[in-house]
């Protein structure tokens, strides 16, 4: 398979003698070979130097085991077309076809269908059907003609049809296989003929009897299907394309109950929903919304999506709709009270959702404290739809690391009543200040072309720049709380000191307003 995958993507000629190699403890080891290389004596598992000794013309290229594994994963999902239970088993796939073969016209036709479809993908397949998973594994890998060897009848206790297979087909560890072969037990048939008690005693640790029992079905080997993760999605196909914009809203009314049922079964709640309208010309229109807490409340979701759905442009008409929960989170079955009355928390979350959908996440925000003394940094804002957990984790992480290793700055000061303004201008505004002495208290300032006589003043409160974050030219700020003759109170600052070597004369700015 690795070679077939490589051959599809590389530019080499199909008959090039290529080795795909992986790194081993003593130099590169051959992972897979092309048929041309196999003819020249290269075998997978051998060392590249040994193969090169036989034929120096061999081309060695690095293999991509991770890519191969990913391909098997993808094939497993694809193989869901034959059976709902598919397990990735090393480099192969195991399918539980119990009760599905008749859908394909019997076991033989199922196998030929599989072969045909794998061939269409450009892959060689070795397929076997057997009553036990171990027997199928052995047949697929070691039978010279795996398909014809598939026993369609229930396998009796003895394991008919498997007697001629080598011991390696038991999936034992290589040392045990070597030991058994040295004892003259080269086939499964020979091993089956041995007394169980003797085998169990001699190969206790290697679990040879267990392997035989799995092969013959005495011991169960359940199949663990790859996580069958259906998308949380509801679809609606229209017989005739709908061109009026109302169609999307009507489709939504039918899709939401279906999606909610799906989410209910899995106890999930949607955090992000996308309504996709499929147009007849193959293009798509998408409307998506986010919620602040997981939700599967039909009315709420309907309300959030309705406006956006109505805005979808049908152009030449929609012929299908899909509603998908792009992001979901576990949501238990909760009922607050006997009469349906939503809790305060979910009420607020719904309000946030409604506001966010209409105004945008960057306009509906909640405060989030930051570890900083710089006023505009100390109060961050986060979108109200995002959960606070993430930022909280970052903060507590910084605290755990302690001040010695963290450059996140000191923890924020306790909030002191009256020392910080109620409002802060997004950009501090330059003001003209008259002061008695350059370093002294301000006396009068002009803000927005109006003079304010300073009646009372308190300060300065010196806030140094955060040297680990700001450029070295950042200047310190001396904040003053001033009150003018009318009783209006402002927070002004002088940026820099005279002669601090970071620019000319210090400038004055108005930053905050007190309530």
């Amino acid at each position, binding site marked *: 398979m690795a070679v077939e995958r490589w051959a599809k993507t590389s530019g080499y000629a199909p008959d090039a003698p290529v080795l795909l190699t992986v790194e081993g403890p003593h130099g590169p080891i051959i992972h897979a070979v092309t048929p041309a290389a196999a003819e020249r004596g290269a075998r997978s598992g051998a060392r590249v130097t040994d193969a090169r000794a036989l034929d120096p013309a061999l081309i060695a290229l690095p293999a991509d085991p991770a890519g191969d594994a990913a391909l098997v994963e993808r094939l497993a999902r694809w193989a869901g077309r034959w059976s709902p239970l598919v397990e990735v088993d090393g480099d192969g796939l195991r399918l539980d076809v119990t009760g599905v073969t008749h859908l394909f016209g019997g076991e033989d036709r199922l196998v030929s269908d599989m072969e045909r479809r794998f061939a269409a993908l450009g892959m060689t397949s070795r397929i076997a059907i057997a009553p036990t998973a171990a027997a199928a594994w052995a047949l697929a890998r070691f039978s010279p003609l795996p398909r014809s060897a598939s026993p369609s009848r229930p396998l009796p206790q003895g394991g008919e049809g498997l007697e001629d297979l080598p011991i390696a087909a038991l999936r034992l560890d290589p040392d045990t296989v070597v030991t058994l072969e040295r004892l003259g037990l080269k086939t499964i048939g020979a091993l089956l003929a041995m007394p169980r008690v003797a085998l169990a005693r001699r190969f206790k640790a290697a679990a040879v009897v267990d392997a035989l029992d799995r092969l013959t079905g005495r011991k169960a080997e359940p199949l663990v299907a790859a996580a069958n993760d259906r998308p949380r999605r509801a679809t609606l196909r229209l017989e005739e394309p709908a061109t009026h914009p109302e169609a999307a809203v009507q489709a939504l009314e039918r899709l939401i109950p279906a999606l909610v049922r799906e989410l209910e079964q899995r106890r999930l709640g949607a955090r992000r929903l996308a309504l996709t309208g499929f147009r007849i010309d193959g293009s798509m229109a998408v409307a998506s919304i986010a919620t602040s807490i997981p939700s599967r409340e039909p009315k709420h979701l309907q309300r959030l999506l309705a406006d956006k759905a109505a805005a979808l442009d049908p152009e030449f008409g929609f012929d299908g709709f899909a509603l998908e929960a792009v992001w979901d989170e576990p949501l238990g079955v909760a009922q607050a009270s006997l009469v349906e009355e939503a809790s305060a928390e979910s009420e607020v979350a719904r309000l946030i959702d409604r506001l966010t959908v209409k105004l945008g996440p960057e306009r509906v925000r909640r405060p989030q*404290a930051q570890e900083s003394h710089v006023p505009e940094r100390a109060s961050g804002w986060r979108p109200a739809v995002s959960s606070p957990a993430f930022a909280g984790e970052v903060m507590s992480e910084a605290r755990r690391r302690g001040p010695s290793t963290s450059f996140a700055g000191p923890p924020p000061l306790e909030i002191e009543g009256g020392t910080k303004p109620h409002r*802060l201008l997004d950009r501090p505004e330059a003001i003209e200040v008259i002061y008695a002495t350059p370093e002294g208290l301000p006396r009068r300032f002009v803000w927005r072309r109006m003079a304010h006589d300073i009646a*009372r003043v308190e300060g300065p409160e010196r806030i140094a720049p955060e040297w680990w974050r700001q450029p070295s030219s950042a200047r310190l700020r001396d904040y003053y709380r001033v009150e003018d003759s009318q009783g209006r*109170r402002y927070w002004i600052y002088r940026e820099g000191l005279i002669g601090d070597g970071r620019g000319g004369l210090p400038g004055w700015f108005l930053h905050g307003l007190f309530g």
Partner: protein
Amino acid sequence: MAKGLSLIAGGAVRARSDPAEYRPVIGESGGPFRLPAPSTPTLSELFAIPRDPGWSGFLLPQVNRGGPLLWVQERMAILETGRIYPPGLGAADLVPEIIHVEARDARAALWAMEEGLRCNALSAVIGELWGDPASLDFTATRRLAVAAERSGVACWLVRLGGTANLSGARMRWRIVSSPSLINPLDPRASGPAAWDAELFRARGAPPGRWTIAHEADAFHLVAALGGRALGEDERLRA
């Protein structure tokens, strides 16, 4: 109901020039001064001069802390008078509970306020509008008042630089900063904030004008209550 407002001057008496003269005034009934407040949550309108940021100190103590606070600011209000700054808003329990909405225009702000009033888990809705937007007519204020009364969430409509035209608000205040009280620790610094508050329309309460201050946990009164006529001339001026 405002717990901690004290009256420092009433009626036509302007705040005295010397802050040291302030002393609390006993209310009309002999008990502590009580600020007129609606008995049930409703829409109150508050007029302020954009340059004068004092109104928020008057408003916040009257907001009850029973749940999140929705604070809607119109874009112009943010540009002109600044964005609210949670570390300065005082009580630490209030800060994480604020939901701040930055509305593009008055229309969006009014929509967000009305949406908030439908959610009865909120403690209050505060909306700041700039000037006299066209979308803020009698119908819009009436809608807010009805929504507030139905859900029992107090709504404060703050008009920055607006004129007091027709409105459905049950209480209408005009708030101007007044020189602050004396600071016991530093005579040069400003002390507890004081406001010249004029109630020029109220349902079920006589209008009036007071100079009030808010101390640590009590609003109190420093001069006798003003008469109705004094409120009248202020209204004419507006």
